[in-house]
């Protein structure tokens, strides 16, 4: 028997569900969803129980959005608890953009909802792994995660999504305290039938140093929308991505870098590789508020098309209200250089291997953004796996 589920008891969830039911999927004229149109999504949240047991240290595993194991075996000082308290849930929800389709969708159909806390000044050097198995076909998962990293703490996490769920729609809020140093890699490697719609929010306090990287490799349709609120001064925020697509995959990376305060630096390096009839979308907005003087905001996206039928759409946007800032953005779409390929082949390197060497070279600027070794290895392994499948 199912227990009383958060989504049926918490007012916030009930209201969000009503909003979702009333508004439905984003309308065709909704500018944020022009390049990624949702015809239909499966909303069928399942209940996989929340039995937790021990497993490998530092690994939290989730099935269909429910925490299955790992809660008892966390790195020192890190705690995980269910967000049953209305006030915590309200705090979480307050970070979400108003009337946002993904926020309403997953808050309204929440599966597991968890609070992960890293106390102030805790110094971790091994990444916490959050391993999501989306669940079964025909099901949807809607995990809510509220990750609070205290002031001065050092924390790393790998967020890994796999499985065959028809929809996984995680909503994650990371609250970074003053001076916190966070390294985050998200690897989305779900089955080629899955839809992945994610909303991630970073709420960052002064002097924090955040390095977040999203790798969109799996799923039939993936949308990774990340909003970074730079709420204090002297923040360093890196928000980089790569997306890889083949067959009919559709990968969407959408970012909003919100400079609310002066003297912050943000950097986004996005690389996409698309084969067959795959489609890639990058929408990146850098907003610099009137008070956010001395902002340094950089953004560069490049897409590599391996087939004439592949398509890349880029919509970089700068919205600047301050007058003393250094901001730039750029977007390119290209294909493999024939002279590069010939040079490698003329040395005896087979065409597929040569292509992969050039793809890896193309991705390297993005891959090098990841500064934590373990996270870089997870990423590198996934990228090589993708290339090997194509060869």
């Amino acid at each position, binding site marked *: 028997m199912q227990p009383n589920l958060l989504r049926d008891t918490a007012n916030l969830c009930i209201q969000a569900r009503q909003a979702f039911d009333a508004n439905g999927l984003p309308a065709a004229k909704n500018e944020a969803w022009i390049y990624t149109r949702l015809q239909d999504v499966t909303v069928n949240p399942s209940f996989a129980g929340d039995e937790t047991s021990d497993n490998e240290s530092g690994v939290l595993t989730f099935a269909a959005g429910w925490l299955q194991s790992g809660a008892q075996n966390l790195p020192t000082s890190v705690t995980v608890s269910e967000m049953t308290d209305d006030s915590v849930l309200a705090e979480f929800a307050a970070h979400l953009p108003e009337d946002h389709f993904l926020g309403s969708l997953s808050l309204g159909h929440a599966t597991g909802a968890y609070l992960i806390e890293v106390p102030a000044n805790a110094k971790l050097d091994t990444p916490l792994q959050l391993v999501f198995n989306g669940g079964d076909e025909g099901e949807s998962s809607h995990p809510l995660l509220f990750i609070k990293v205290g002031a001065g703490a050092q924390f790393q996490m790998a967020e890994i999504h796999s499985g065959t769920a028809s929809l996984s729609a995680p909503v994650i809020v990371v609250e970074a305290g003053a001076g916190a140093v966070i390294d985050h890699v998200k690897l989305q490697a779900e089955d080629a039938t899955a839809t992945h719609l994610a909303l991630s929010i970073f709420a960052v306090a002064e002097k924090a140093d955040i390095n977040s990287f999203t790798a969109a490799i799996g799923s039939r349709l993936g949308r990774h929308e990340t909003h970074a609120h730079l709420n204090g001064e002297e923040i360093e925020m890196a928000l980089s991505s790569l997306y890889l697509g083949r067959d009919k995959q559709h990968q969407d990376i959408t970012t909003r870098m919100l400079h609310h305060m002066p003297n912050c630096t943000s950097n986004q390096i996005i690389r996409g590789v698309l084969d067959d009839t795959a489609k890639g979308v990058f929408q990146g907005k850098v907003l610099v508020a009137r008070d956010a003087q001395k902002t340094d905001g950089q953004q560069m996206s490049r897409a590599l098309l391996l087939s004439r039928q592949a398509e890349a759409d880029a919509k970089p946007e700068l919205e600047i209200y301050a007058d003393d800032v250094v901001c730039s953005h750029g977007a390119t779409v290209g294909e493999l250089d*024939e*002279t*590069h390929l*010939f*040079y*490698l*082949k*003329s*040395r*005896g*390197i*087979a*065409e597929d*291997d*040569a292509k992969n*060497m*050039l793809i*890896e*070279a*193309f*991705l*390297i*600027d993005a891959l090098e953004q990841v500064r934590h070794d373990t996270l870089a290895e997870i990423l590198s392994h996934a990228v090589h796996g993708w290339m090997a499948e194509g060869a």
Partner: protein
Amino acid sequence: MNLLEIKNLKAKIGDTEILHGIDLTINRGEVHAIMGPNGSGKSTLSYVLSGRDGYEVTEGEILLDGESVLDMEADERARAGMFLAFQYPVELPGVGGMSFLRAAVNARLREKGEDEVDQLAFVKMVRAKAKDLGVGDEMLKRAVNVGFSGGEKKRYEILQMALLEPTMAVLDETDSGLDVDALRIVSEGVNALRGDTRGMLVITHYQRLLSHIVPDYVHILAGGRIIKSGDKSLALEVENNGYAGIIDAA
């Protein structure tokens, strides 16, 4: 058996025929030079031999060790022993030099049915050969040809040749962009690779390279045909009288 046999080779780029029927035979141990004015088809010949896409052979044959290479891709030809030292070596940002060299060497070893070389042994092997060519560790660590001077790029080409040990090496305008000292280093590197197991085809516009890499045979290519062949003295004739006299006489 002849190492390389080119028979009545005709090739075009797009709709334009560039090579109008070339015959050339190279045996192991021989160094042949092809000289010719700009636009004579020298670079086209080097690309046709190495199998670059976009160069279509319309007639004739290219045999390497008696086997036709016309249906082979560039990488297959390279693994079969063909090597092209590029006139303009290509910069490959993001492709690490060492992993590039190792991928190339291992591809050739696999083809020969030999064991791949492990990383440690490979680094040793590269360093030893690189030293003779004045290719320093710092250059080896960089991405392929990125940030190399003209001379460094040519030395790096010869290093690749030394590592791959091709049976048939084609050197396309290896002297272009080299100063006197670099020309000497590169030539010494090439000369060190001369031997009974290998044939070389040195393509050049100027005689000066051929006073360093002394050829056994010299051929004059003009208008997509070999119009005259001779020994090394033919190169001096070009130096003294230019191409015009030879072309007019042909």
